[in-house]
């Protein structure tokens, strides 16, 4: 579930409002958007990829709300960790070009 929208980081670009498939965020005039409908979150992590400043954090818990502290998430280097792993963002290279599924499938077939 989406748990954090960091007021400190957010630059009000409203990308998250635009791209969230289940319309969880709400634009607010002259302010940063809010997480308006948390229970509609489908835990797909897409908003993390589209936020240009790593202001969003989605816990992998699909079924329940779980309070997490922004400072703890930053400390664990988790804010923005997904975007980093897919290689999106300025100065990064998409890791789609490192996709080693072909190796994994080949070995999986040999293992089974």
């Amino acid at each position, binding site marked *: 579930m989406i748990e954090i929208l960091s007021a400190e980081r957010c630059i009000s670009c409203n990308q998250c409002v635009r*791209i969230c498939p*289940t319309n969880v965020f709400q634009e607010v005039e002259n302010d940063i958007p809010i997480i308006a409908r948390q229970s509609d979150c489908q835990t*797909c*992590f*897409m908003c993390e990829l589209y936020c240009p400043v790593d202001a969003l954090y989605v816990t992998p818990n699909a079924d329940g709300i779980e309070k997490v502290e922004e400072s703890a998430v930053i400390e664990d280097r988790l804010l923005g960790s997904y975007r980093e*792993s897919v290689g999106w963002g300025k100065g990064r290279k998409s890791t789609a070009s490192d*996709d*080693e599924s072909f190796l*994994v*499938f080949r070995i999986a077939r040999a293992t089974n």
Partner: protein
Amino acid sequence: MSKEAKEALKLQADVLVIGGGPAGAWAAIAAAGQGASVILVDKGYCGTSGATAPSGTAIWYVKPEEQARENAMMSRMDMGGNLAERPWMQRVLDRTYHNMHQIRDWGYPFPIDETGGPNYISVQGPEYMRLMRKRVQKAGVRILDHSPALELLSDSHGVAGASGINEQTRQPWRIEAAAVVIATGGCAFLSKALGTNVLTGDGYLMAGEAGAEFSGMEFSTAYAIVPYFSPVTKTALYQFATFYYEDGRVIEGAGSRRGRSIIAKTLLKEPVYARLDKADESIRQSMRKAQPNFFLSFDRLKIDPFTDKFPVTLRFEGTVRGTGGINIVDETCATKVPGLYAAGDAATRELICGGFTGGGSHNAAWAMSSGYWSGEGAAQFALKQGTNRFNRNARGLSEFSGVSTQADSSKSKISTDEVIRLVQDEVFPYDRNWFRSEQGLTASLGRLNQLWLEIKQGVRADEGSRVGAREVAAMTATARWMYESGLARRETRGMHVRTDYPERDAAQHYRLISGGLDQVWVKPHTAPNNGNAEEAVQA
């Protein structure tokens, strides 16, 4: 959010594409390529919405070498109950091959394998769908995001567009179109399987109201392995897993492919644990690169899936990784209703999968192939209609089911949340849906039919819930087509398991077509001789 009714946005296009996953995106691009004007509407956001966008997707990509193609076609033939059709498999393999090279030319960064060339066996969903959105826009297609279609429009000549609402502005829209492609994905019943909560079977309901038929709805028992907390239903990597009882003993026969039913049976009694301990050090990094969000879940909970045991469960994926859907009647992916086309998970995938899950490569190939053909076909159909194609005075089809596009405000009506829970209670439990029996299916159908009648009286929207009356009705209708088909197939074939008929019956080597709204019907449809000689002889 203002509550006053806004004036509807009124638009016209040759082709309207409903749904912007891979199937819809390919349909829109192909239709525009024929010179048609095209609008694409998506309930979420074309580029992030649907089952493909959030995750790594394996593709049924096979080089055009005779032996390789032959092996690919036969690999799931028996598992699928010999219901797949070779000419369709060949077409899909050809089209997929072509489309994959197309996205390379558009700039998709395929990895380089040991041959020194690009490897096309998989795509990363976020990258693929971001690219597809760009190409849809580049093709001149107008995209309306956050704009679910609620009902189709039609007149005596056939389908003539659709209407819906923009969920962010609350402005209704009405689009008149000479042809419509339904690419709304499957129905996963709001199980929260990755990316599927936008997939409530809306396209099935709309097609059903227009008089389209379904095929293979009994093959809808897809359950995927997940860590018990997680939405990430990526099952491929569990080929490296060993499954354990609570006390640490290995569950014999449990596995991600054929051994999944053993996991389900165990889960009915006790918890099941997994550990990816068959993956040695050398492959672990590759696995991470192949499926970043699979590991994201573990990393964030500080679980090492290679060395720690973690509890797993099975999340229902309905028709998304099943194979049933709207029946198509020709190579353009037309339905029996003039002007109405279907593609991707919204359409039946039996033609290439038979009755065994299309997940893990076939579905993605089908989405891009059927999407392409439906877009091309819809555009050609539309352009043939000539200049009169927009003077049609069409009306909404929701009256055919009687399920209103508006929520009911009366407190006495059943609520969206209540319907969701009641439908989920029928389709989630393994002992109802996975292990089916005449008794169980009949009892479920009794309750679902009752629920359908109640929905027709009006559905109240729960405060704060995004899911609308039409969506819960679509889920209910889908469950009824699934279970009536499941009841009619008195044998075990493909993913459809009947505890009271545990064997495959050669006399039932046919597809099941279904349809109807108040009165659901099912009838056998003998597949054309498709080279499944073995069973043809037995039958």
